[in-house]
């Protein structure tokens, strides 16, 4: 698995070097991944999957295939009954997973099992409703214990996120807050102070889901760069190789969710991992 993550032409397109942040050893996995990418002038593909859709048994193979195809970090969505930031594709995948009994503890147990088999970073995407019900910072600790390298709580209250952020810091895992195109500069400053590992930028207003038009992220990236040296990952509405390229021209990582989740759910249940790998390779083609 020593091959380059991206074709050379793609690397050239994205080869914008950034100042390396001061480092403290030993480095967490997410920090290490972004440092290595930056050192090589490369960008990260961050695919998003819903744990338990189409099946939880498909998760290890899916993650292995994504890693093999060149993805750097996988976001694993823990199913929630009322995901208000998600469009129909992810919301329905979560409902299907819930109907199969995929609870947070089941997801954590499965990640603990598969952790040793993937080198990719694993970041949990989990609603604050689940986090709060499961003990707040205790749940962040449980994620770290299961082998997650980071967590995104997309509906956290910035005014109350301190204990969650502190626990992520204590366990040295990434903690990414969302930054929206509508966020004010003052708000961005507060948000990035509560991030570690990377910052999650929303490519557009609205919910997750596939879009035709390429995302316009340059100005948001510039505004966030002015406040932090953390890597910037961009998601929401990123579904083609052209979108990924457009995002990576400015940011450090492109997050692809709905279009992958839809592809995994559709078709032969025994070929989920193959579809994951094929789509990731397609996204990385320039």
């Amino acid at each position, binding site marked *: 698995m020593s091959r380059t993550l991206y074709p050379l032409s793609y690397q050239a397109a994205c080869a914008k070097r950034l100042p390396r942040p001061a480092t403290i050893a030993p480095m967490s996995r997410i920090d290490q991944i972004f440092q290595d990418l930056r050192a090589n002038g490369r960008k990260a593909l961050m695919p998003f999957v819903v744990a338990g859709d189409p099946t939880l048994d498909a998760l290890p193979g899916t993650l292995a295939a994504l890693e093999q195809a060149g993805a750097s970090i996988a976001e694993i969505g823990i199913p*929630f*009954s*009322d*995901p*208000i*930031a*998600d*469009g*129909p594709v992810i*919301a*329905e995948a979560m*409902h299907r997973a*819930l109907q199969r009994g995929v*609870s*947070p*503890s089941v997801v954590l147990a499965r990640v603990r099992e598969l952790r040793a088999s993937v080198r990719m970073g694993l970041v949990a995407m989990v*609603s*604050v*409703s*689940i*986090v*709060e*019900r*499961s003990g707040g910072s205790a749940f962040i600790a449980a994620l770290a214990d299961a082998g997650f390298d980071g967590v995104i709580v*997309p*509906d*956290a*209250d*910035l*005014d*109350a996120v301190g204990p969650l952020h502190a626990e992520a810091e204590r366990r040295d895992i990434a903690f990414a*807050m*969302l*930054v*929206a*195109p*509508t*966020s*004010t500069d003052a*708000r961005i400053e507060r*948000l990035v102070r509560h991030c570690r590992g990377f910052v999650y930028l*929303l490519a*557009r*207003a*609205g*919910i997750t889901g596939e879009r035709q038009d390429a995302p316009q992220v340059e100005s948001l990236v510039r505004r966030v760069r002015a406040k932090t040296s953390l890597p910037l990952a961009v998601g929401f509405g990123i579904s083609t190789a052209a979108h990924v390229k457009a995002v990576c021209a400015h940011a450090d990582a492109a997050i692809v969710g709905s279009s992958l989740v839809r592809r995994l759910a559709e078709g032969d249940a025994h070929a989920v991992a193959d579809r994951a790998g094929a789509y990731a390779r397609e996204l990385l083609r320039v």
Partner: protein
Amino acid sequence: MTTLPQVPDTQGRFGKFGGRYVPETLLSALEQLEAAYATARADASFQRDVDTLLRDFVGRPTPFAKAERLSESSGGAQIWLKREDLAHTGAHKINNTIGQALLAKRLGKTRIIAETGAGQHGVATATACARLGLRCEVYMGAEDVRRQALNVFRMRLLGAKVNAVETGSRTLKDATNEAMRDWMGSVADTHYIIGSVVGPHPFPMMVRDFQSVIGRECRAQSLERLGRLPDAVVACVGGGSNAAGIFFPFVGDAGVRLVGVEAGGRGNAPGEHAAPLAFGTPGVLHGSLSYVLQDPAGQTADVHSCSAGLDYPGVGPEHSFWKDTGRVEYVAATDEQALDAFRLLAEREGIIPALETSHAVHATMQVARGMRPDQVVVINVSGRGDKDVNEAIRLLEARGDRV
């Protein structure tokens, strides 16, 4: 009783409850709304616009009158009625939609969205939008669209677009999810009129304030008609807007007992009721921390009530605050008890109440029985029951009642 602090605080917290648990996309809209509302609240001309519409369009103040024959049948305290059922569109919901629609105009928003369960808030929103010239879209669970065809027609007649929501349980919770999803992509020109004292800050505070006209009138009417404050005030609680509206002006009056009545449904087992204050735990739903009905992992639980307006797994954060501080007592009335009370108010007072309100009528009879005849209990008659007639026929026939 110690004095409660002024709530919410600057972070939208009622004690530990409330807050703003929403994706970042909505934050700037919430901050803009909070600032605009603070300005409007201090602006006499905004207050005058609200008051004028409440008087000339809604028909306020609503009457406050003794329920003579209901009082007789309780055998205890006198029962008085605050008649929100006589407000335009037949329920208290219009107090909030008028206020928020006027605020939306101040914000320069041209499009309004709303969620609705039974359709009362949808109708009240469509009504305010028609009156003020705002485009209106209402999200309603597909299951509710089927059950409440009359209200769907009313909304359309008022010029609103009704979007049937096919996700999840296809009821109020899912309609609220869908309205929030719309708003995440439309905040630039759209205001979301939430129908209850729920959601992220500043909604619980703002809706409470607009609904507080009920309690302010009731307090003044009590002083005028009774020469004193009532001994108890009773209101039903779904999300809790009519209750918050009548309770809030009495919260500082230590001698006034406040009783909120949740939907006890068919029993105490999970999924059989819609009583988060009785059976729930603190958790996050639709943008705020409050008591909520969830499974142990944090997934929103199924709920049941005969009354669509109470059929909701969450409750406003201020109610959670009032519960934990002990300022308000919360009880539950079952479907059966509510149906009995529905018939009772019709037969004894010539008022067919909403099934929601019927829960409060039942609890009032319990409260009044333990009190002296010189004492006074007020029921907030939050809505009229015309909308529930078909459902009531079905439920009464199912239990073999002859009407």
